C-alpha cells in the first residue's frame, strides 16, 4: 500500500464515528457563519480614512493626493527626497505616474535581467495594488499589471505603492472575493518588522524597510 493509500485509510478508520450520509461531497457552505462581513459601514470616505489611519498605525508613510493627476508629483518628490538613483518599474505601470521622476534617475523595466541580485542594488520600486483593506491596514498585490513579479517589491529597500479609491474595501471578507487565488499574492500590512528581540519592534529585517503609500482620494 502506498503512503497515500495508507494515510487515507487511516483517516477513514479514524472517522468511523462520523456518519457518511451519502456519497455526495461534503458542503462547506453549510457551516454557520454568524460573523460580520464589515465592522466599518459603507461610507467610502470613512473607509478611506480608516485605511489611512491603520496604514500609518503600522508605520507605513501615507501621502494623500486629490486625484490621479497628482500621483506623478508625489512619486517624483518621494524618490527625490529619498535620493533614489534607480527605480524598478513593473510591466503595465501607468506611464504618467513616473512623469515627474528626476531625469538622472535610472528606470529598470521588469525582465529576466532584473534578477534578485540586481534588485539588491536597486533603490526603490513603484507599484499599484490589487486591493487595500481598511480595517487591517493591508495592501494586497497579486502580480497583475502595474505590480510586478513578487521579487520586485521584496528585494529593494523602498516601496512606493499607489492606491486608487476603487481598490479600497472595508474588511477581509470583502477583499477575498475580489482576489483570484490562482495568482500569487502578497498581503502587506506595514513594512517588514520583527519583535523577536525582547519584543522590541524593529522595522525591517528582510522586506522593504520603508513603505510609502500614495492614497488617491478621488
Amino acid at each position, binding site marked *: 500500500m*502506498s*503512503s*497515500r493509500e*495508507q*494515510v*487515507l485509510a*487511516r*483517516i*477513514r*478508520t*479514524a*472517522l468511523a*464515528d*462520523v456518519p457518511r450520509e451519502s456519497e455526495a*461531497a*461534503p458542503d*462547506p457552505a*453549510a*457551516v*454557520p457563519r454568524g*460573523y*460580520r462581513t464589515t*465592522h466599518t459601514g459603507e461610507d467610502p470616505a470613512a473607509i478611506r480614512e480608516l485605511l489611512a489611519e491603520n496604514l500609518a498605525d*503600522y508605520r507605513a508613510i501615507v501621502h494623500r493626493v486629490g486625484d490621479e493627476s497628482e500621483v506623478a508629483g508625489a512619486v517624483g518628490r518621494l524618490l527625490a527626497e529619498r535620493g533614489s538613483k534607480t527605480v524598478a518599474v513593473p510591466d503595465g505601470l501607468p506611464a504618467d505616474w513616473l512623469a515627474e521622476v528626476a531625469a538622472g534617475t535610472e528606470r529598470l523595466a521588469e525582465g529576466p535581467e532584473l534578477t*534578485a541580485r540586481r534588485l*539588491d542594488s536597486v533603490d526603490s520600486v513603484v507599484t499599484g495594488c490589487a486591493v487595500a*483593506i481598511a480595517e*487591517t*491596514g*493591508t495592501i494586497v498585490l497579486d*502580480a497583475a499589471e502595474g505590480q510586478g*513579479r*513578487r*521579487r520586485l517589491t*521584496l528585494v529593494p529597500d523602498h516601496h512606493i505603492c499607489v492606491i486608487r479609491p476603487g481598490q479600497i474595501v472595508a474588511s*477581509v471578507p470583502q477583499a477575498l*472575493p475580489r482576489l483570484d*487565488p*490562482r*495568482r*500569487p*499574492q*502578497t*498581503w*502587506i*500590512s*506595514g513594512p*517588514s518588522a*520583527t*519583535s*523577536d*528581540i*525582547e*519584543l*522590541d519592534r*524593529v522595522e*525591517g*529585517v*528582510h*522586506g522593504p524597510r520603508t513603505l510609502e503609500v500614495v492614497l488617491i482620494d478621488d
Partner: protein
Amino acid sequence: MSRTFVGMPPFPTAARSSTKDGQLRANLTHATHTIRDKRAKAVAELDDWAELREAGKRIKDHTLRHLDHYLEQLEASVTAAGGQVHWAADAAEANRIVTELVRATGETEVVKVKSMATQEIELNEALAKAGISAYETDLAELIVQLGDDLPSHILVPAIHKNRSEIRDIFQDAMGRWGRPAPEGLTDRPAELAEAARLHLREKFLRAKVGISGANFMIAETGTLVVLESEGNGRMCLTLPETLISVVGIEKVLPRWQDLEVFLQLLPRSSTAERMNPYTSTWTGTSDGDGPQRFHLVLVDNGRTDTLADTVGRQALRCIRCSACLNVCPVYERAGGHAYGSAYPGPIGAILTPQLRGVESELDASLPYASSLCGACYEVCPVAIDIPEVLVHLRERVAEGGGHRDGHRVEGAVMRATTWLFDHPAALGAVERAAGAMRGLVPRRLPEKLPLPGPAKAWNDSRDLPELPEESFRDWWKKREQRGSGE
C-alpha cells in the same frame, strides 16, 4: 543543549532546572504578559469575535470530519496548478522525501522559513546527516540555530534569550555559517536585526531551494498560505528555483473564502496585530514568478491517531497562534524547553502526547503539566477545550497509553491518582504546578467556566487539592540545598 528533543527528561525534571533560571523567568514573564495584554485589546476591536471563533471552530471540525475528501481535493488542485504532492506516513518518511527532493536539485544548501512541522519531524537534523545545510531565516530561529539551542515559544522562539545573549551568539557564531557579525556589534535590537539582515541576504540571493511549512492549504484551489512578519518568508517562498512545503494534513481548509475567518482570528490571537506584516499565497507555480518547481509533502506523523480519538481530535483544530502559551501559568514558570517537543505550553501538553503516544516518561508527564485553570481554552481562537483533553489524556496515561474512550472520568481520576503515587516524576509535576499556582487558583474552578464533557464533570464534583503553604520558589531553594535529585 543539543539540537534534538530526543532523550529529553520528563516535564517535571526539565521544569526543575528551567524554573531555577531567573533570567529565563524574567524574560518569559515580560513576554507573555506583554503579548497577552496586547492580544486582549486586538480581540476587543472586533465585536463579533465570538462568532468568528465559533465559525473557525466549525470550519475546522467540518474539515476534519471529511479530511479524506478535502485532502484528495487538495491534491488534485495542487497537481492541476503545476505542483507535485507527496504523502508521508511518519517523520522518517517525510524526511526521506525532502532529502531526496533536495538531492535531486544537486544543491547542498536550503533556506527555511520557520515551520513547526519541520521542527516536529526534526528535518534539519535529517538533512544535516545527508550533508545538506538547512538555514533558518526567521530572526528568532536564526538566534536559536546559531546558539545551538532549541525554540521555546511558538511565536517568539528565542524569547528565552535577552539582547546581550543574542549579541554574543551573533558575534561567536555568524562567521561559522556565513557572513560574520559586523565589528563592534552592540546589543541594540535595530543593530542586531541589521546584522541578521546582512548575514541572511547573502543566503537568500544564492539559495536555489526553499523549504516552508504553511498556515493553511485551500482544497478548492490548491492555494498555500504563509503568514509572517519579517519578509524572510517571502524571500524563501519566491527567490529559490525549487520550493518544498512540508505541511501537516490537518492544515487544509475547504475554500478560499474560509480564509476570511482565519485571517481575522490568527494575527489578532498571535501577535495581537490587526494583520501580520506579510501574508504570501501561492497556487502551484506561476510562469516566470517565483519557484518553477513546487513540491507539497503532506505529513501524517501521528495526526491520524489523534483524529481517531473523539475527544482529543479537537487538538487538530489548532492554528498555532500561541495565545494559550501566553496565558498559561505553568508555561510562564517552566519555559518552553521543559515540554520537550516542538509544541510547548498547553497545546503542547495535549498535542505532543497524542502525536507521539504516551509511552515515554516525558510524553506521559505532559498531560499533568497543567493546573486546569482553563485560561488556555478562553483565549483559544478555535475554542479547543484544552482542559477537557488534558483530563482525557490523563485517563489514557493512567490506563497504560491505549486509546480507550467511554470510561467514566471519575474512575479515571482515581486511577490517575493511584498511578501518580507510583510515578514520582509525574506526581512531582502535579504538585509543583499546583504549588506554583497557589494564590491564583480558587478552591474550585469557577462555575461559569464553560467546561463541557468530562472536565466539567470533574470540576463539578471535586475541590482542588489543598496546596502547600510554601511558595514554589522557596520549596525549590530548600530542595536544591538538600541536594536532592530525582
